[in-house]
């Protein structure tokens, strides 16, 4: 995964060096956190509900 993403990042000039700061963390990035998922759902739906109410006014 690292190589392909870095290849694209290089192609689109978003990084110059494959430095340690990036490589140390990239493998870990796809792990999920259940609490974040719960609130992403609840608060996103809540904000959309508020948007719908506002637009109905």
């Amino acid at each position: 995964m690292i190589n392909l993403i870095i290849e694209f990042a290089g192609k689109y000039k978003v990084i110059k060096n494959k430095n340690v700061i990036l490589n140390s963390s990239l493998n870990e990035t796809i792990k999920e956190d259940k609490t974040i998922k719960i609130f992403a759902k609840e608060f996103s739906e809540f904000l959309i509900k508020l948007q719908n109410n506002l637009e109905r006014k």
Partner: protein
Amino acid sequence: MKNTLKNMIDFESLTRVRNSVNAEIFLPEKNNLVSLIPLEYFGHSVKVLIDGKIFVAEFDEKIPLKAELVAFIVEKSPVTLSLNLTQLLSKNKNYLLEQICEKLKIPNTDRNKDLLVKIIQEEKPIIKSKFLQLEIITQKIKTKDLELSLLINLIWKYSEKDIPLIVDLYENLFSISFSSTCKYLFNSIKNLILNQEDVYLLNEVNANLIYDTKRENTIALQNKSEILFNLIKYLNDGDYSSKEVDEFIKFSSIYILQKSVFKDYDYYPDFVVIKRGNGFSFIKYNFKKLYLSNGMPSYKLEFEHGEIPAKIKGFLRNNFLIGSIDIENYENNLLLKEIDELKNDINKRWQINMELNITEDQIYSAEKSFQKNGINKLVS
């Protein structure tokens, strides 16, 4: 080197803590700041140099040695110091910032004070050498919000020789903020749907990247890194080429890389694309994961609607969330009713109790708006 110093009879005897150094006399009063250099750990305490005198002090946290820093005096006997200035910041911000500038002999400018506030909010110790590095870098790299928080974490973690790497990271990967990356990616997802006819691609995007409240496809609420990576691979292997595809690959790559760096410092920023009727909405959020002394995680969270002025801020600890909400032009009673429903839903589904307050600004602006519209019956 100590053997070469003239008249240096015994180096250790000079650095030994002597009874003559009386903390009651030589240290400022409780709750004041001192500038100090921690020299070495001394049992469970630390030998520190304050105004040329050595004291043995207790700290409530691990501290960096041989660096000039600022601490506040919790107790004078025994000497107990703390590097965490967050409480002092909330009590008396201006006085605290003036004291830090004076102790570290740095100019008392608005810019320096803003940087100090951000460092304290990140719960980092005020180390003079690190502050000066930050001050120099932020003259070159204009950054704020989440990216400034990250920059502070990087400078505090890495040594001075790594500064070119950090600058490189900001001149390239973080030349656009994560917030902008999410907006660009949101637009490129919409463009992909409008301009591509590939059935597999459209199905994948609709099922995994766009949350439909009717279908409740919660996968679209998750971290999108893996899904985006698989789509990049699919587009690349299938030799797709168009402006929309290029944009999508570019911002997906930036998204994955930026998120991976943030994750290292326990920041989890993200966005949600939501299908509403024939259109789409965009919600961005950020979670900062903190760890309690028992190792359990707690979360500081912020949600912001991309199209209407609405924000939620909160802090989740164990099974209790306390927070506030701000939304413009919204009737208070209706908002309270919606909050109550949300509280009940969250409690029923996840056994999490919640206290979501309407901020004073929100109450004031709502009252003002309804008075102007003549809706407030008490006034009319």
